[in-house]
């Protein structure tokens, strides 16, 4: 089983809070990109072809702004994947979309290519905050995009960014309530964080308040958890809420430390080799460099680095504890060769004592209290 991530590296404009690998280009040669992405998809999945459980679990087209892709390109990539490995029967194929690039014709094209889930970058449902976030759409366009998505795709998710500088709990709850009336089976609610290399980060360094301070961020977080819980959207991950069965299967692969092939500029992958070793793969980040590499030799691999069992244990813990389901010891043992005995027993006991972590039925979970402070919990546990 393997998941496939495909990165489309282009945006119309760079968002001031986003540190993803995205680039703005005047002209994009779509057929050329379609050929290259399809070629690397084949190269990335080929090693799995002769494995016993050779199936594609999910495909995720992320970016950048993948809704700027030509539907033909999306089709070419999905087709290349299908030609290399069989798709799982219920294979989830998600495409990230931006409200400004939403058009009915394009959505129909994506759907026809095989996309069955969209994830919309709505970010806010009020105009002032959308301007603060540097988005090119307004709230009306956002609502329109969500409605359109529902007409074309069986599953729709959208993102909101909260813990904005002046945001009050009451205002956010109002916005969330509206979001719930618009939502499908899934919502991603991210607290705004400052990433190095972004405009927001620089402005904060220059003294501007760009996010809510810790106390308010904590209050907003708690309000979010309560609202979503009541609405029946369980927080199955730190920032992701879904109705039962609405979880993002693709993202679960990351959080469960499964295999995923990463295709496209700057994409990361985690793949098992024929001998059972785990590797991190990194593609060339710059679109032009990646494109030339793929055209010259069939893939844009920049680096492939073995991930030791100990490193994988760390990755598995740091990803797994983000999930409400936690980390089953059996998985940890199967993937890294050792169970919870590999963790610091004294520290683990202290976390359990404090109520940050529970250990039941062979499974380690972060409690709500623990998840809210997960970075500190992980820093303490994975010493």
């Amino acid at each position: 089983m393997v998941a496939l991530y495909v990165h489309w590296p282009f945006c119309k404009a760079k968002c001031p809070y986003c540190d993803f690998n995205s680039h703005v280009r005047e002209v994009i040669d779509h057929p050329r990109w379609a050929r290259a992405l399809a070629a690397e998809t084949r190269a990335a999945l080929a090693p799995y072809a002769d494995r016993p459980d050779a199936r594609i679990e999910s495909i995720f087209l992320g970016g950048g702004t993948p809704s700027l892709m030509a539907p033909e390109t999306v089709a070419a990539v999905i087709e290349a994947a299908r030609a290399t490995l069989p798709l799982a029967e219920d294979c989830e194929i998600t495409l990230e979309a931006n409200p400004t690039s939403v058009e009915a014709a394009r959505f129909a094209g994506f759907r026809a290519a095989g996309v069955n889930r969209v994830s919309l970058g709505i970010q806010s449902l009020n105009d002032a905050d959308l301007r603060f976030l540097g988005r090119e759409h307004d709230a009306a366009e956002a609502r329109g995009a969500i409605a359109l998505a529902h007409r074309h795709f069986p599953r729709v998710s959208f993102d909101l960014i909260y813990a904005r500088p002046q945001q009050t709990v009451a205002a956010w709850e109002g916005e969330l309530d509206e979001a719930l009336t618009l939502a499908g089976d899934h919502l991603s609610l991210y607290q705004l964080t400052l990433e190095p290399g972004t405009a927001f980060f620089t402005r904060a360094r220059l003294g501007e308040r760009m996010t809510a301070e810790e106390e308010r961020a904590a209050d907003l977080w708690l309000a979010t958890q309560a609202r979503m819980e009541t609405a029946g959207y369980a927080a199955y991950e730190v920032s992701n809420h879904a109705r039962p069965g609405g979880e993002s299967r693709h993202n679960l692969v990351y959080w469960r430390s499964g295999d995923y092939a990463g295709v496209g500029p700057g994409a990361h992958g985690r793949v098992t080799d024929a001998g059972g070793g785990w590797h991190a793969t990194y593609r060339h980040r710059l679109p032009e460099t990646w494109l030339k590499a793929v055209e010259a030799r069939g893939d844009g691999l920049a680096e492939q680095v073995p991930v030791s069992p100990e490193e994988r244990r760390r990755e598995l813990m740091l990803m797994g504890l983000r999930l409400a389901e936690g980390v089953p010891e059996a998985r940890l043992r199967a993937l890294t060769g050792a169970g919870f005995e590999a963790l610091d027993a004294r520290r683990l006991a202290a976390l359990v004592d404090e109520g940050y972590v529970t250990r039941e039925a062979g499974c380690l979970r972060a409690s709500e209290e623990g998840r809210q402070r997960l970075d500190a919990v992980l820093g303490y546990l994975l010493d």
Partner: protein
Amino acid sequence: MTDLSRIRNFAIIAHIDHGKSTLADRLIQLCGGLSEREMKQQVLDSMDLERERGITIKAQTVRLLYTAKDGIRYTINLIDTPGHVDFSYEVSRSLAACEGALLVVDASQGVEAQTLANVYLALENDLEILPVLNKVDLPAAEPDRIKRQIEEVIGLDASEALEISAKTGVGIEDLLEALVTHFPPPQGEVEKPLRALLVDSWYDVYLGVVTLVRVVDGEIRKGMRIRMMSNGLAHEVDRVGVMTPKGLEVDRLGPGEVGFLTSGIKQVADTNVGDTITDDRNPTTDRLPGFKPSVPVVFCGLFPVDASDFEALREAVGKLALNDSSFHYEMESSAALGFGFRCGFLGLLHLEIIQERLSREYDLDLISTAPSVVYKMWMTNGDYIELHNPVDFPEVTKIDRIEEPWIKATILLPDEYLGPVLALCTERRGEQTELTYVGNRAMVVYKLPLNEVVFDFYDRLKSVSRGYASFDYEIEGYREGDLVKVSILINGDPVDALAMITHRGQADYRGRQICARLKDLIPRQLFKVALQAAIGSKVIARETIGALRKDVTAKCYGGDVTRKRKLLEKQKEGKKRMRQFGKVEIPQSAFLEALKMGDD
């Protein structure tokens, strides 16, 4: 060998910046053994640190040849003295090698506390004192007022005081002449067994230990065996010479002469300042008076900020001790700060100088624990302990009584700052013994517990007097005190490096202060942190640092794992600098900051 009548030995007593070094340079320039090219400015202060701070740390000396108006060529030895109170014993030994002293006073600034202390030392050593007003070329100079001040404050006759400018050279000829006419020649007999005063010693990479001596009786020759009377060590003399200030080898040093010798002595610690050097084959029975072994008065722990610098620190303190017999050290291990050294010093300035040399010359990033004094403790079982580390404070029930060192402090200051200075002294448990005015300057004498002075007293004094107060002290003796150990606990575990011994009356305040300070310094973390100050089991102050409320990365997908993992791995590296207290980990930097911060 020089005829005794043609020798003059003198020292210069001056406050920092009143021009001692400039005057010495001027004298060397006029009659020393250096060419223009060799004449670096301020030759006498050879260490960078000394030059920068204007303080002479190691006494040095220079032989001047001066042909006086009587046509006779005199050998004049200028014996330099360390410029600070911490080295008052060393100063007194340097002065003991002289017959006269120039009291150099800045003609606009006037007499300072330090000058006063050294004048008293000179008087105790029966020196002739000649007042000299320096910097008379400056517009602010008021020689008449300062002369009056010398007479009123010190009680010296200033009618013959010289007015000079070491900088421009004004009055220097008269001063040289006065050295010959005003100061008596030394006395001594060459036929008697050798008696020489050990004035100073230092380590030279080429020559080994170099010892500066003043011969009183007999003579020192190359090849003879000499004996240190304090420790009985005997060595053959390799070299005898005088400082011009360059070393110049001579055959012998006779009575009244000042010079250096080298022998097989391996370490500076074997040469005790104030010791009597005699002839091993024909020893004297009559030691020179005034010898005291050096005893450290102030202690503190020195720890490397980066644990991996420990070996470098060990090497550095070893090297410093090689050249400074008054600096003591032994290894210490602290739960909060790791491995370091418990060090003993002659006083606070000595401590500061050693710290600065370690950081400057050895490039070490250090942290020091709060300075502590030596407490005398009598135990209920009859034992007697000298305690210089709060960590070793015994169980209270086993202590019968504790005595602490007291000092006599002399403070000179413009009277407008008198109020806050008196308040400071009172706050530090001081007892006033004297308060006199000279014009608009006041002189106060206080008896103070030394432990109140080592705790940032200088800094406070400087700040409340805007830098105008000058301060000097001498150890007065021990007195019984109501002293307690205040422990600082983090989640119930004591932090050894922050423990302190203080008067019971100050304990609450100090405890509250350090808890509040730590609260600001320790970042909120996963677990609640309880900070307490306690005397024994009684908590006298507490603060709580609440657990952090929210700390979680919002987005973490396939492309973020590598970075997140590496961040954790980096944090793990950083944790090497964390100290464990129960469940909580406190960055070592918090302790370092707590120790660095002043009393503000």
